[in-house]
């Protein structure tokens, strides 16, 4: 797989969870992981394992219990919020519905770390917005209302918003949820292309095991209290997916990477 260049995201001994009333509630034990430049990394794990919490910790919305996240080889806590916004962009699972919001305006929110007091877009900003829309194949929709988009189109627009933010790192929380099968592949292929062509580090969480196995460069897998990372084949050889699918009637075919169902 892609030769490990500079690590874009480096998770060091990170323990994620919440602190309520002075008591720490750990969601996942300490682990370390990396995501390199130009790498497409898929984060896998069953519901409730803490994928979203990890995502939120990596983008800095949620403090970690222990350990650190390094962004471009510096502890993310050492960056001012505005600087961090030029390094990491985020696409959440929130389905943002704002009436009358134009696709162009939504994407131009990605330019906010670069614009002045009133958020007026320079001609360069406008170019970046249109170019970002072009990259996801949505430039024809620039002046449509966001409320008229299909789920697949909306996901593309949200990715364009992250692209407009022009960050070396993009983090996406379940970008393939709610999409039909072709759209799931299309979105992940788009992410792969963006990672390769623009040398961005792209981390996305997903439940689509077979898509991740086929397309991602690296996987982060959150099993029951255990963390594994590596190239898909590597993890396959180490039977990581059997751990992931423990106590289910599913297994992964080690040859094809397809999910198999055992009927009792």
């Amino acid at each position, binding site marked *: 797989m892609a030769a490990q260049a500079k690590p874009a995201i480096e998770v060091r001994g990170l323990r994620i969870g919440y602190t309520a009333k002075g008591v720490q509630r750990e969601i996942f034990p300490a682990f370390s992981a990396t995501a390199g430049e130009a790498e497409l990394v898929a984060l896998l794990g069953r519901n409730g394992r803490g994928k979203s919490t990890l995502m939120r910790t990596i983008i800095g919305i949620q403090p970690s219990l222990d350990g650190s996240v390094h962004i471009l080889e510096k502890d993310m806590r050492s960056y001012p919020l*505005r600087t961090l916004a030029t390094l990491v962009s985020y696409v959440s699972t*929130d389905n943002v519905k704002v009436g009358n919001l134009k696709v162009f305006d*939504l994407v131009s*929110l990605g330019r906010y770390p670069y614009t002045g007091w009133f958020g007026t877009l320079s001609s360069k900003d406008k170019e970046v917005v249109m170019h970002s829309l072009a990259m996801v194949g949505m430039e024809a929709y620039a002046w449509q209302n966001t409320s008229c988009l299909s789920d697949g189109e909306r996901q593309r627009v949200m990715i364009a918003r992250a692209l407009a*933010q022009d960050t070396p790192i993009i983090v996406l929380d379940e970008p393939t949820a709610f999409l039909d099968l072709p759209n799931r592949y299309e979105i992940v292929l788009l992410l792969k292309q963006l990672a390769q062509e623009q040398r961005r580090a792209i981390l996305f969480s997903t439940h689509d095991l077979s898509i991740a196995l086929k397309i991602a460069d690296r996987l982060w897998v959150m099993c029951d209290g255990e963390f594994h990372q590596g190239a898909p084949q590597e993890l396959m050889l180490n039977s990581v997916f059997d751990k992931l699918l423990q106590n289910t009637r599913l297994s992964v075919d080690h040859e094809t990477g397809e999910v198999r169902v055992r009927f009792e």
Partner: protein
Amino acid sequence: MHPRRNKRVAAAGVTLATLTLILLVADVLLGSEPVPLATAWRALLGTEQSHLSQIILGYRFPKAMVALLVGVSLSVSGLQMQTVFRNPLADPYILGVSSGAGLGVALFVMGYSVWGTTAVGALLASMGYAVSACVGAAFIMSIMLTISMRVRDIMAVLILGVMIGSATSAIISALQFFSRETALKSYVLWTMGGLGNVTSAQLYVLIAVTLAGSVLALLSIKTLNALMQGESYARSIGYNVGKNRLAIMLTATLLTGTATAFCGPIGFIGVAVPHVARMLIREADHRYLLPITMLLGAVAMLLCDVISSLPGYETSLPINTVTSLLGIPIVILVIVRNQKIV
């Protein structure tokens, strides 16, 4: 780029500005005793000395100014609350913030001794009304903000807002029960509100606060756009959500608190005007939406005031009655349209 959108918004802006002017004049001229335009003009210039000029200078003109200012204040704070709460039906009246202002005023009126009738005393008393209303409004606003951060369901937030508003009103009733007669009287007078009972000292405070609040709101346009998409997105583009949300809600509280302090609780302007503005220009960007909401707020409130004091009747309708009758259909329309979203 998109050439037509600026034109459309500019056209709406010019139309609304013209309407504001026309309604301002109409509001001054019309009333239980209509005044001819020429007489009103001479009265404002100070060349007319009659009972008509007294009506114009002492009552109608200040009242029209108050309508304009309160319209702007309530609409701006309505829009700010809708964006920050991410709730299309958020508004100072519905979420109980106006009741909070009422509680502040009640505590002030029932607690304060007579301030005297000097100009300084009058100014202090109006400041007292404004400050206590703002403190009361801020109290409820902070409760609602805390709730909205924990409760995701926007309908649940609205119902809680209505409940807290009712609880606040109940506390006020209890206070009234235990208060002295003179204090009770001034409080009841306040609740009846109206745009016409504002003294000139209060008018100056209202002008200052509305100006300051509008400037602060205009300065927060970019932040409002950033917050439109919710907390995680705002943060990911470099916004400290907590700090910014607090700053915007302080502005909204100041605007609502002051307007409510002097005119009593006025409903449905704050919730309805931003929606009409959205329907009018079909934009969500606050760079367009906020200025149009301000102008439309002035127009709406002036229109309500004109309707409330149409000629031919000795007395005028309570302003809250008119704003409710005009505003509620719009709120219903929004609820029906939002059914898919909510």
